[in-house]
């Protein structure tokens, strides 16, 4: 079932140049949908359009069939959660307070009863419960990223949007985060995720949209989209792609 759909979306900057041209994407329930591409390909722009932060010059964005623009912000926040790349907190809120902010859209609804459980579970899942009482500004970059993810998980929405959630993380926490994301998709969530690492994409994504210079170059199953020839064409870097001897998942290695 398609949940978040953008079709024929274009975004122009002030001088009229298109930074996203005629892009379409369909994020389905139960799937991890990765947005990949080189720097400046338009991943963040497409992400911003899907999140409702940017109004496209042309094209439509719908959530569960209804135009994104027409959905009340509070209602929208109950249906989709967004994790941005940079997460700062202006005042010394504690980790627990920050995670609890994810529950704000559910205030004064029956779901409010699950606030405590949702906060506790999200903190346990992201391995941040150990420093729940510390203040956000006192955390390291990796810890902050996990707390921000916990906030998004606590929001308990059927659609998740994550902009490079693993960028600041070490190997173990990166894999932890991707496992959480996978589990959410298996539980029925629609996940749109911006990723840089092609191997991560091949291992965890169900579907990939590859962008280059503001256009969608290819979309489909990761193994079909991320071929050696296409990666070289889009990234300008020759690579070898071969199946992992244990799992059979394709592995991308730059030719050095």
């Amino acid at each position: 079932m398609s949940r978040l759909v953008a079709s024929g979306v274009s975004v122009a900057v002030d001088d009229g140049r298109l930074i996203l041209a005629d892009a379409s994407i369909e994020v389905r329930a139960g799937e991890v949908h990765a947005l990949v591409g080189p720097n400046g390909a338009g991943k963040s722009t497409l992400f911003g359009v899907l999140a409702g932060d940017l109004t496209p010059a042309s094209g439509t964005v719908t959530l569960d069939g209804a135009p994104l623009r027409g959905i009340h912000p509070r209602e929208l926040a109950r249906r989709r959660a967004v994790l941005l790349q940079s997460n700062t907190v202006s005042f010394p809120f504690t980790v627990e307070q920050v995670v609890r902010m994810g529950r704000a859209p559910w205030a004064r609804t029956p779901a409010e009863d699950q606030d405590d459980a949702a906060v506790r579970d999200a903190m346990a899942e992201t391995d941040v419960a150990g420093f729940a009482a510390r203040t956000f500004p006192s955390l390291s970059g990796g810890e902050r990223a996990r707390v921000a993810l916990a906030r998004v998980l606590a929001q308990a929405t059927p659609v998740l949007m994550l902009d490079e959630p693993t960028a600041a993380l070490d190997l173990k926490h990166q894999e932890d985060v991707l496992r959480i994301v996978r589990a959410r998709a298996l539980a029925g969530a629609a996940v749109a995720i911006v990723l840089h690492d092609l191997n991560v994409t091949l291992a965890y994504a169900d579907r990939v949209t590859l962008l280059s210079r503001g256009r969608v170059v290819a979309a489909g199953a990761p193994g079909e989209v991320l071929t050696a020839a296409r990666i070289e064409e889009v990234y300008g870097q020759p690579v070898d792609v071969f199946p992992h001897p244990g799992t059979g998942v394709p592995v991308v290695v730059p030719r050095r």
Partner: protein
Amino acid sequence: MSEEVVVPTPARHRGSRFAVATIVLALALIAVCVISLGLGQYALSPSEVVGILLRAIGVDTDLAPAAPTADGVILDIRLPRIVLGLLVGAALAVSGVLMQAIFGNPLADAAVVGVSSGAALGAAASLTFGLTVFGLWTTPGAAFLGGLTAVIAVYLISRAGGRTEVVTLLLTGIAINAIAGAGLAFLTFLGTTSTREQIVFWQLGSLNGALWQNIALVAPLTAVGILAGMLVAGRLDLFALGERTARHLGVRVELLRIVVIITVAVLVCAAVAFAGIIGFVGLIVPHLMRMIIGPAHLPLLIASALGGALLLAVADLVARTAVPLADLPIGMLTALVGGPFFLWLLVRTRRRSGGWA
């Protein structure tokens, strides 16, 4: 219930700190007010003060002194002055909390960023030109317009990408203060001897000569401002995550911003209209309260209102009694404490963020 022990519950812990802080602040406030009412050229003991206050609300005790002049001194001179001080202190502290929230910056304060000057300029203009279009409300109304203009200007100029850098905020404040200062200087030049005195009095900040009719204007404005602040407090917490994320959590950011800016202008005009520019209250009080009870805005706002009232009650007591037969300008006193505090905050902010970010 065993989970209660295992899982840390800082929110609840801070909740109890809030309760304790509120009670301590309220008790201190009452104590300072009673002492302050008794001190001065015509000295009365705290019990006599309580007796007079009780008699004024219709409770007869044998505590009150027989002399009728005592009633006049307390009820017509000292009490309105103290009440005005409490209102002004609460209004300034809450305006500080609100500005810091929308600027995402703990250094925002009505006087520092020039909102107080803007309001003072408006008020001074209404006096110098003898405006009376709104009757008694003319001066507060003009102060509101001046303050609103200033806060909108600071907001538009100093923000970029949902946050305000310290340097930009402070430089904008300098510019706004300079412009308002030029306006005030021009009005001083234009005005008569009596309006000149008024303008100088504003720039110093003073509670001297407070009347009950002033309070009838300031009290509702302060109440409305604090109430509006309390209504948006939950959304201000989300604002600390940045504008985009607040929006993703269902906050109508543009609407919230407008409500908060107007509320700040209402509070600052309430504070400035009859007491002039009293600086740093909105800086010191929210900061101390945040250190004690944490940054969550609803408790912070309530504690800051009490703390601001207490700070001005103490400052006013000192202003009246520190030098015999002299009434020091209260704005001078808050600046005397607030200036060094501000410097300390600046140095600390710079050290923490490794630059002027």
